[in-house]
């Protein structure tokens, strides 16, 4: 990766915040690239996982937080398992996902992935468990024209097999789950707007 640096582009406060959440210095990484070599979705990334760690090392906040890479990451932990320096690149990706939400810079190209996570979580917040049919409806209705026709056939074939069930399973103490969601809500840290 070729980067041109100037002093104004380096955000060391941000870099230190990533390192604080990570629990160690990003300089631990010596850019061997083993993480990206084993990453099953590296083919989808402009900045594969070692390059994302590099962006942290260089304090390039904007590029890192606006990237698609952390959203197409499948969290399979292959990179962290193979890292010879225990940098835990999978955790770096998770931290970048959290921060992109806090800064309002979730990559617009991967809004499907983000919406699906949010639909999933709103189902958990509401029932304490996942209600698959509700989750699918909620996700599709956010963009009905684009998402509506997708997987129709798969859905029909599932229904013939009695999947998924029609009714939600609600736990008794849903209030406790709702309070967990409130107490762990991410702080919106700035007035940045998404692209």
């Amino acid at each position: 990766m070729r980067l041109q640096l100037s002093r104004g582009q380096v955000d060391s406060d941000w870099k230190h915040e990533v390192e604080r959440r990570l629990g160690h210095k990003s300089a631990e990484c010596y850019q061997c690239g083993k993480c990206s070599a084993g990453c099953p979705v590296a083919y989808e990334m402009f900045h594969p996982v070692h390059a994302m760690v590099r962006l942290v090392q260089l304090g390039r906040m904007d590029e890192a937080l606006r990237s698609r890479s952390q959203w197409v990451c499948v969290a399979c932990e292959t990179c962290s398992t193979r890292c010879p320096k225990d940098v835990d690149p999978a955790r770096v990706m998770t931290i970048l996902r959290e921060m992109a939400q806090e800064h309002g810079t979730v990559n617009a190209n991967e809004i499907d992935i983000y919406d699906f996570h949010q639909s999933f979580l709103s189902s958990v917040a509401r029932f304490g468990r996942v209600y698959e049919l509700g989750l699918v409806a909620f996700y599709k209705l956010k963009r009905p024209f684009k998402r509506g026709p997708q997987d129709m056939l798969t859905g029909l074939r599932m229904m013939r097999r009695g999947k998924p069930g029609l009714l939600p399973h609600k736990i008794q103490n849903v209030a406790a789950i709702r309070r967990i969601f409130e107490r762990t809500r991410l702080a919106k840290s700035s007035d940045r707007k998404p692209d």
Partner: protein
Amino acid sequence: MKLGYYPGCALKAHATSLEYGIATDAALKSLGVELSEIPDWNCCGASAAHMTNLDLTRALNVRNLAIAEAAGYTDLLAPCPLCAKELCLANHEVKEDPKALAKAQEAAEMVYRGTVRPITLIQFLYEQRELVQRKITRKLPGIKVCCYYGCLHTRPKEAMGFDDTEQPVTLDQLCQILGLEPLEWSHKVECCGAGFTMSRSDIVARLTGRILAAAQLAGAEAIVVACPMCHANLDMRQGEAAADAGLGKDFQMPIIYLAQALGLALGLTPEQLSLGTHFVDTSAFVQRLGGEPQPAAAARAAEEK
């Protein structure tokens, strides 16, 4: 033997992976294990919480761990490795970091002392392999299978602490005990795309296509899995996966749960193990085992083809 049980959303009632729940219940019952579901458990947050908010996923899982602890269980069986991984990771993190524990306890309004050990079905059966060997009523004929562990059975290694992260062998050994013939192959721990099944089904098709092609190359007649996400992705998207891999025809590779194979070796029928609700027709596999195929399921599969 009584065992704390965290079924998770995928296995519960009529979710997508209802086969896994049905087969696990039936197989463990005939093994003599009593599954005792912990009360009022909540979703582990799966990939959505883990992907977007670490404090949330930790608090959700500490609540479940605290419930299991209060109910008096040490071992907590979580047959879905995604649930097991989230439980193990939360367990590991709160033991290492008192601040994380305090925060999670406060959010979950529960006290957790760290006495629970969440385990996957592979781990449980592997630890009980002598019991399995004693209890099985027949050896399955030596069908060639590829054992697919998926990414999360052994990772992250400091949290799961079980088997090898690159070349795991426990599922292969269990299949061997059941009489199956596990093959050497390349994609034991490659990711199937897990939670992207709706939002980025193209990624799932690409990744499962690689796995299915590798299994085919190894000469497998079926793939054995122990994860509802792996099963859903491998079983439901074989057409798209074949198209993505540039193959003319569908893989038609039966994807069998470990719990189903175990149940068959314990003498249960294919109906009791819900082998008829798969997308890919399993009747050839069942017939090779000497069982009666399910005509309704086979007809449905033929019609959809």
